[in-house]
């Protein structure tokens, strides 16, 4: 505070982060809109098919409103999105909101279950490895984590299908959910998708947990607790682990965002009824409105997770944040 500025209070800092997140979401949505609308792939030409002539395309463009200035179209789109209207699919002519609601809920269910599993697994593995850095156990867990983080998720998912559905035959390989049903109707079908997502994210998060446990283990206050002759379990549970909670929560919040954006490929392996199918078919069919709608929802979820991570960081360590 040598600059003579009064230290900011926590609520004000939090409000600032919130405003930052809103700004990020707006600009990210503009980038998304630009990528979807400006790049050559044209919705009008696509919805007419290959045989359309220039006149037909021009009429279609006018009908779809594609001939209006880009800025106006963007503002229109964002304005309606704020009202809960994500536009209309150029392929099925149904409202995007209606098309994506059920898949979004199914994807969020998958994410929520994966986050739960990830937190449990990553915390235990990270703490086990981090309490004895350099040990054989630490090396084994770390090597496993590096491998799982490197391997693409659809490969992990396919190997799980190969082992548990095909070779052992103990779990279903695909999520056959009847139209209008929920994946919860058949919990066994959720096991492999959740496992595939969690293996990757738990491997990643366990590295974060390990790093912060190792760091806490070397901190002066843990040292002095040990020197004071406290029993080891007391040192670990009362002095070491509590200091790691802040950074770990932050890593988990960040991870939730990564999971929201990362389910698409895993869903595809299991034919899971999430956002993957509409997202991929929107790209195949040049259905710009659906692509933009899903992209907006997904980046919204990521921004919220990142904001949560930021706020947790602030609450855990308000002074550090001011200094930054």
């Amino acid at each position: 505070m040598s600059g003579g500025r009064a230290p900011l209070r926590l609520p004000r800092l939090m409000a600032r982060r919130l405003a930052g997140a809103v700004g990020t979401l707006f600009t990210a949505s503009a980038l998304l809109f630009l990528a979807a609308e400006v790049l050559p792939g044209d919705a009008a030409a696509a919805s007419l098919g290959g045989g359309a002539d220039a006149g037909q395309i021009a009429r279609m463009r006018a009908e779809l409103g594609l001939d209006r200035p880009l800025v106006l179209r963007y503002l229109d789109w964002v304005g309606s999105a704020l009202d809960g209207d994500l536009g209309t699919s150029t392929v099925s002519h149904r409202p995007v909101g209606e098309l994506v609601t059920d898949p979004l809920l199914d994807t969020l269910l998958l994410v929520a279950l994966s986050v739960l599993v990830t937190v449990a697994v990553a915390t235990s593995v990270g703490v086990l490895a981090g309490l004895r850095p350099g040990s054989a156990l630490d090396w084994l867990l770390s090597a496993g984590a590096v491998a799982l983080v490197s391997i693409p998720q659809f490969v992990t998912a396919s190997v799980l299908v190969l082992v548990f559905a095909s070779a052992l035959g103990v779990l279903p390989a695909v999520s056959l959910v009847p139209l209008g049903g929920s994946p919860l109707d058949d919990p066994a079908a959720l096991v492999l998708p959740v496992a595939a997502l969690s293996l990757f994210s738990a491997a990643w998060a366990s590295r974060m947990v390990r790093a912060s446990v190792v760091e806490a283990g070397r901190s002066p206050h843990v040292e002095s607790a040990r020197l004071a002759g406290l029993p080891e379990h007391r040192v670990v549970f009362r002095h070491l682990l509590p200091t790691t909670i802040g950074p770990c929560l932050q890593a988990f919040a960040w991870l939730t965002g990564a999971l929201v954006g990362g389910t698409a490929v895993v869903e595809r392996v299991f034919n899971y009824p999430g956002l993957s199918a509409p997202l991929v078919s929107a790209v195949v069919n040049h259905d710009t409105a659906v692509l933009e709608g899903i992209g907006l929802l997904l980046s919204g979820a990521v921004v919220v997770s990142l904001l949560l991570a930021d706020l947790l960081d602030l609450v855990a360590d308000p002074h550090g944040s001011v200094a930054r």
Partner: protein
Amino acid sequence: MTDTATEAPAAAVRPSVPRPPGPGPLRRVLTGLLWLPALAVVLLAVAGPWLVPGDAGRIVGGPYSPPGPGLPLGTDAIGRDVWDRFLAGGRPLVIVPLVATVLTTVVGTLLGVLAGYLGGRVAAVMSWLDSLLLALPPIVVLLALLHGLGYSAGTLLLAVAATGVPFVSRISRAATTRVVRTGYVDQAVALGDGPLSVVVREIVPNILQPVLADAGTRLAVAIALTASADFLGFGPGTPSWAAMVSENMEGVTLVPWGVAVPALGISVLTVAANLLLDRLAAKGAS
């Protein structure tokens, strides 16, 4: 075993001094052994297409034929030779990701060094741009670009770079700020060095280690993104390991190796990419 031997007294005494880094003999031997299959797979991926006798797309037998003479891995759903397709399908996962990673690392490092060296407004704008790109999930960026530009190696390069540059520039910016604070830079400037010479001679050599260590992750992510695009059906249309996993998934109970072999290839490739650059970074540090 030596690892467990050093572990026992450590548990009793609990030294709080950080253990000297450096792997034990067991770990060295194990990592040494890991390199053999890794090298073999990389070689196979690059040279594979030359080893295929004919066209890997031709039909050589009935659907899902079991392995037999001349067909080491049997056939896929439409009767194509799985082994031939495996040989032909590794290269797309090596060349494009490698080029994309070099591009991402160079661009990200340049931006990060610029921001870290200049500081102030430039750094603030750059960090805002990074947070912006991090808010868009990589798969959304990839699909939006595929939607607009269609599939090409260039689209993939762009997608990998757009999603990777923020990570690289964050790391190199932080490392540059650290170097600038150590005083090397002030000293070099005092001795009359120009900005370019400061960047090339003082900053870049000192930030190389974290940047290289991260490049391993970037390469693994680039391979994963390329493979994911292919897996989702946006690929070159020629045989590829990722597309094979997807194509052969349906017949996985009949021809499990149609999924297992390419999946293993991708796994070894990505893990090797990550470990190799980690190793390079560690070498560079010592």
